[in-house]
C-alpha cells in the first residue's frame, strides 16, 4: 500500500480531481455539455455489445466533460514524474488517476443527486433534467428513484476515465503521442461530419461519397470506421518521424552552410515553395466550385477577417501600436461602399456607383482616416494609445447610428440594397453531365455573383504587400519602433511618417475588407461594427502569432472559420475565446504559427535542451 502511495499519489489525485471536477461543473453548468451533445461523434460506440448499456453513442458533450476527467488523470500521472523520467511508476500513477477520477466524478454526481431533489435552475439556468440525464448516462430517468445508481454510475465512469488517462501516461512517449493524434483525428472527423455533408464535390464524386457512406452513419461515425481511422492516424504518426528525419537529414547539409535567417533559399527549395503556393492557389480557386455555397460563404468571412488581420498585424504586430478601434476603418470601407452604391432612394447620395468605382474612394478615405487617427496619437503609447483608438472606433459607430446623419448613413436601420459586384448571365456548361461537372459543378449565377474571388484576390494582394513591407526598410523601421521607440528614432527613423504609414496601410486593408463585406451582404447595419470586431481581429492575430503573416491565416481559420462551422459553439464563443487565450498565453505565447525569427529561436532553445 505504501508503495502505491509513494510520491504523494493520493494528494496529487485529490488536487487534480478537484481541478478536473471544477472544469466538469463549469462546462456542465454553462450549458456546453447539453449543447455539444447534439453533435454525435461515433454512433453506437460499442456496436452490438453496447445494446443494453446506457452509452449508445459518443457525442461531443461527453467528450467535453469525460475528456476533462481523462485529461486530469493524465495530468495527475504526469505530476508523479521524477525529473528526467518518461513514465511514472505504474501503481501510484494508476492510483492517482483513479483518485482523480473519483474526486472529479463526485462533483457532477453530486450535482445530479442534488438537482433531482431541488430546483437548481433558479441559480444555474442550465441545470435542467436534460443535463442530469447526460451526466448520469440516462440513469436518472431509467434507474432507481433514489438516484443512487446514477450517482455511482457517474463516479464509476469518471474513475474509469481517470485511470485510463493515467494509463495513457504509462505508454512510451511516441506511442502516447500517436494515440493522441489518432483520438484527435477521430474527434475532428466526427465533429466535421455536417461540414463534409455540405461539400458539393463529395456528393458528386462517386468514390468520395462511397467513402463518406462507409465512414459515417446518419448520426456520427461508424464504430468500425472510427476504429480504422484511429489506427490509420496513429500508425501514420508513428512512422512519420522516420520519414521526416530522413528528409531533414537530406536538407540538413544545405542548412549547415551557415545561413543567417533571411538567406536566399536554395533553388530546389524555391521551386518547392512555388509549387506549394501554386497548389494552394489552385485549390483556393477551385474551392467555391468544389465545396459549394455554404463553405464558400464561410471562406468569404474568413477572407475578410484575414484582410483585417493582415492590416492590424502591421499596426500591432509589426509596429507595436495597440489599436483597439480598428473596426472604424472596416466601417468606413463598408459605409463608403454603402453610401455610394446603394439603390435605396431614401439613403445615400444616389450615385448608383458600382463597387469597383467606389473602391478607389474607399482606399482614399481610409488613408485619410488612418492619418486622422494617427496624428493625435503620435505621442501616445501603450495603454493610452489603446484607449484613444478604442474611442475612435466608437465614434465612427456612433456617427453611423446617429439621427443627424441618417439621410446618408441610414441610422440604426443601416443601408440596404447594396448591389452585388457582378451581374453576369449564366454561362452554360460545355460538358454538362460528364466528369468535369463533378469536379467544378455548374457555373451558375449563384457562384458568379459570389464575392469569393474579389476577396481571394484582395487577400493575396494584402499578404503580398505585407510580406514586401516586412522585408523592407519600412518593415524594419516598424519593428524597431515596436522594440524601442526612442532608439528607433536615434537610428534616423522618422517616427511620424513611420507610424502614419503603419496606420494608413492597416486602415486600407480593413477598408477594403469592409467594402467587400458590404458588397457581400448587400446591407450593412451599425451593429455589425462594434467593439467585438476589433477584439476578434486582435484575438486572431494573437492566436496566430503576433507579427506573423501565415499566423494571420491560421488565426482567422481558427477564430472565425471554426466557430462558423460549429454552430453549437456560438453561445460559448466568448467563453471559448477566453479559454483559448489563457491556454495560448500559458502554453504557446508565440502563437500557432509564430513569425520566422521566433520559430528559429524556439527551435534553437529546444535543440539546446536536447543536446546540453
Amino acid at each position: 500500500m505504501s508503495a502505491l502511495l509513494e510520491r504523494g499519489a493520493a494528494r496529487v489525485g485529490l488536487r487534480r480531481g478537484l481541478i478536473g471536477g471544477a472544469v466538469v461543473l463549469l462546462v456542465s453548468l454553462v450549458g456546453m455539455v447539453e449543447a455539444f451533445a447534439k453533435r454525435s461523434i461515433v454512433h453506437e460506440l460499442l456496436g452490438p455489445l453496447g445494446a443494453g448499456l446506457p452509452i449508445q453513442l459518443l457525442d461531443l458533450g461527453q467528450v467535453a466533460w469525460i475528456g476533462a476527467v481523462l485529461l486530469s488523470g493524465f495530468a495527475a500521472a504526469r505530476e508523479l514524474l521524477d525529473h528526467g523520467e518518461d513514465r511514472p511508476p505504474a501503481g501510484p500513477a494508476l492510483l492517482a488517476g483513479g483518485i482523480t477520477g473519483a474526486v472529479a466524478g463526485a462533483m457532477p454526481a453530486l450535482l445530479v443527486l442534488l438537482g433531482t431533489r431541488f430546483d437548481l435552475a433558479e441559480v444555474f439556468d442550465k441545470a435542467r433534467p436534460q443535463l442530469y440525464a447526460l451526466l448520469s448516462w440516462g440513469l436518472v430517468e431509467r434507474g432507481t428513484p433514489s438516484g443512487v445508481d446514477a450517482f455511482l454510475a457517474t463516479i464509476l465512469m469518471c474513475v474509469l476515465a481517470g485511470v485510463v488517462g493515467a494509463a495513457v501516461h504509462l505508454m512510451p512517449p511516441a506511442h502516447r503521442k500517436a494515440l493522441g493524434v489518432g483520438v484527435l483525428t477521430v474527434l475532428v472527423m466526427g465533429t466535421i461530419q455536417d461540414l463534409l455533408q455540405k461539400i458539393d464535390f463529395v456528393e458528386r464524386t462517386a468514390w468520395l461519397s462511397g467513402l463518406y457512406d462507409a465512414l459515417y452513419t446518419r448520426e456520427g461515425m461508424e464504430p468500425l470506421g472510427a476504429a480504422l481511422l484511429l489506427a490509420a492516424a496513429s500508425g501514420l504518426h508513428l512512422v512519420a518521424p522516420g520519414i521526416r528525419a530522413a528528409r531533414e537529414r537530406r536538407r540538413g547539409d544545405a542548412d549547415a552552410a551557415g545561413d543567417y535567417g533571411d538567406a536566399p533559399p536554395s533553388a530546389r527549395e524555391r521551386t518547392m515553395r512555388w509549387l506549394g503556393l501554386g497548389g494552394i492557389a489552385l485549390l483556393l480557386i477551385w474551392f467555391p466550385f468544389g465545396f459549394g455555397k455554404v463553405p464558400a460563404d464561410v471562406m468569404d468571412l474568413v477572407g475578410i477577417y484575414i484582410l483585417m488581420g493582415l492590416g492590424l498585424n502591421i499596426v500591432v504586430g509589426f509596429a507595436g501600436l495597440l489599436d483597439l478601434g480598428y473596426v472604424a476603418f472596416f466601417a468606413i470601407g463598408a459605409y463608403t461602399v454603402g453610401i455610394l452604391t446603394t439603390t435605396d432612394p431614401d439613403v445615400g447620395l444616389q450615385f448608383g456607383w458600382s463597387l469597383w468605382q467606389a473602391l478607389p474612394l474607399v482606399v482614399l478615405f481610409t488613408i485619410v482616416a488612418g492619418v486622422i487617427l494617427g496624428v493625435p496619437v503620435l505621442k501616445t503609447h501603450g495603454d493610452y494609445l489603446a484607449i484613444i483608438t478604442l474611442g475612435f472606433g466608437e465614434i465612427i459607430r456612433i456617427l453611423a447610428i446617429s439621427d443627424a446623419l441618417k439621410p446618408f448613413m441610414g441610422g440604426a436601420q443601416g443601408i440596404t440594397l447594396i448591389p452585388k459586384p457582378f451581374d453576369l448571365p449564366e454561362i452554360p456548361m460545355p460538358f454538362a453531365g460528364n466528369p468535369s461537372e463533378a469536379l467544378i459543378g455548374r457555373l451558375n449565377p449563384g457562384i458568379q455573383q459570389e464575392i469569393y474571388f474579389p476577396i481571394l484576390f484582395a487577400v493575396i494582394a494584402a499578404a503580398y504587400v505585407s510580406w514586401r513591407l516586412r522585408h523592407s526598410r519600412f518593415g524594419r523601421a516598424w519593428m524597431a519602433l515596436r522594440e524601442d521607440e526612442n532608439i528607433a528614432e536615434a537610428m534616423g527613423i522618422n517616427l511620424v511618417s513611420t507610424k502614419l504609414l503603419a496606420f494608413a496601410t492597416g486602415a486600407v486593408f480593413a477598408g477594403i475588407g469592409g467594402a467587400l463585406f458590404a458588397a457581400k451582404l448587400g446591407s450593412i447595419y451599425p451593429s455589425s461594427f462594434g467593439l467585438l470586431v476589433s477584439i476578434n481581429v486582435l484575438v486572431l492575430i494573437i492566436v496566430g502569432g503576433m507579427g506573423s503573416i501565415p499566423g494571420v491565416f491560421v488565426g482567422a481559420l481558427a477564430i472565425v472559420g471554426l466557430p462558423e462551422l460549429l454552430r453549437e459553439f456560438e453561445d460559448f464563443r466568448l467563453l471559448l475565446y477566453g479559454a483559448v487565450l489563457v491556454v495560448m498565453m500559458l502554453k504557446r505565447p508565440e502563437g500557432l504559427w509564430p513569425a520566422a525569427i521566433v520559430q528559429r529561436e524556439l527551435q534553437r532553445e529546444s535543440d539546446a535542451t536536447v543536446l546540453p
Partner: protein
Amino acid sequence: MSDLLLDCRGITKRFGGLVAVNALDLQIPAGSIHSVIGPNGAGKTTLFNCITGFYHPEEGEILLGGSHHLEFLRTDEITRLGVARTYQNIRLFPELTAVENVMVGLHARLESSLLGVLFSSPATRKEERWATEEALRLLEVVGLGGKGDGLASNLPYGDQRRLEIARALATDPKLLLLDEPTAGMNTGETASMIRFIRRLRDDLDITILLIEHDMKLVMEISELITVVDFGQKIAEGKPSEILANPRVIEAYLGRGAAEALDVRTAAAAPGAAHDATSDADADAAADTASDSGTPPGPEPTSSAGSQPDPVDEGGGSA
C-alpha cells in the same frame, strides 16, 4: 586644432530643481578621441542626451561642423547629420536578430520608395542586397561574424556592446558617442575594445567622444579629457594634466585620495607622465575596490601586471 566637429557652448539642462548640466562648454576637434569623465551623477549621460536630441537643453547651443544647430533638431535628424551613439544600459532591439539590428541602423542610408518596395523594383532589390551585405560586413568589423542570425537579446553581454557599436556604425557617423563602452567587460575584452576604438578613428576617420569610468582606458586612449562634476566642467586637458590636477582628483577620487596622490605626484614630478598614469590607476583601482567592499586581491595586481603593453601602445600613437 583647427576645425571643430562639435562645439557645445554653455549648454544647461535642468530636471526640476536639479541642474544636471550646467553651462557646459565642450569643443571636439575632428578626428580626435575625447573623453568625458566625472563621478556618478555628474551629468555625463545627460550631456550625451543633449547632443543626440534625446533632451533639448534649456540654454546654450550645440554646433555640428560649425553650421548645424543640433539643439533644435530631432534625434533622427541629428543621426542623419552623422552623430551616432551607444548607451550606458545597452539598448538593442531585443526581439530582432543581430543582422536586423544593424540593418535598422542602415535605415537612414536606404532610399527605396514605397512603390519600389511593393513592386520589388530592381533598384530596391539591389539596395536590399547591399544592406544585407553591409550589415554582415559591419558585424565582421566588430567581431561578431557568424553571429548574425541570433536574437540580439540572446547574445552575451560583451557581444551586445559590440552589436550596439555595429548598429551605430551602420548610420555612417562622423561623430560617435560611446557611453561606457567597456562597462562589465574583463581586462582582456577591455584591451581589445581600446584597440578597436582606436581603429575606428584611425581607419574610419570617426571622431570619438567617450564616457568612461575605467581610468586605465581613459588615460590610455584619450587625447583630451573633460572632467565634469555636478554638471560643470571642472578641468580639461591631456591625460597627464588631468592626473596632476588636484581639483579633479578631489572630485573624482575623494579628498583623502587627493592628498595621498598629491605627495606622490610631487615626488614623481620630474619623471615621465606614464609613471603618474600607472600610479594613479593603481590607486584608483584600490580605492574603488575598498569603496565597494570587494577585497583588494588579485584585481589591482592583475591590472598593474597588464599595464606595460597597452601603455606602450598608447605612447607609440601619441
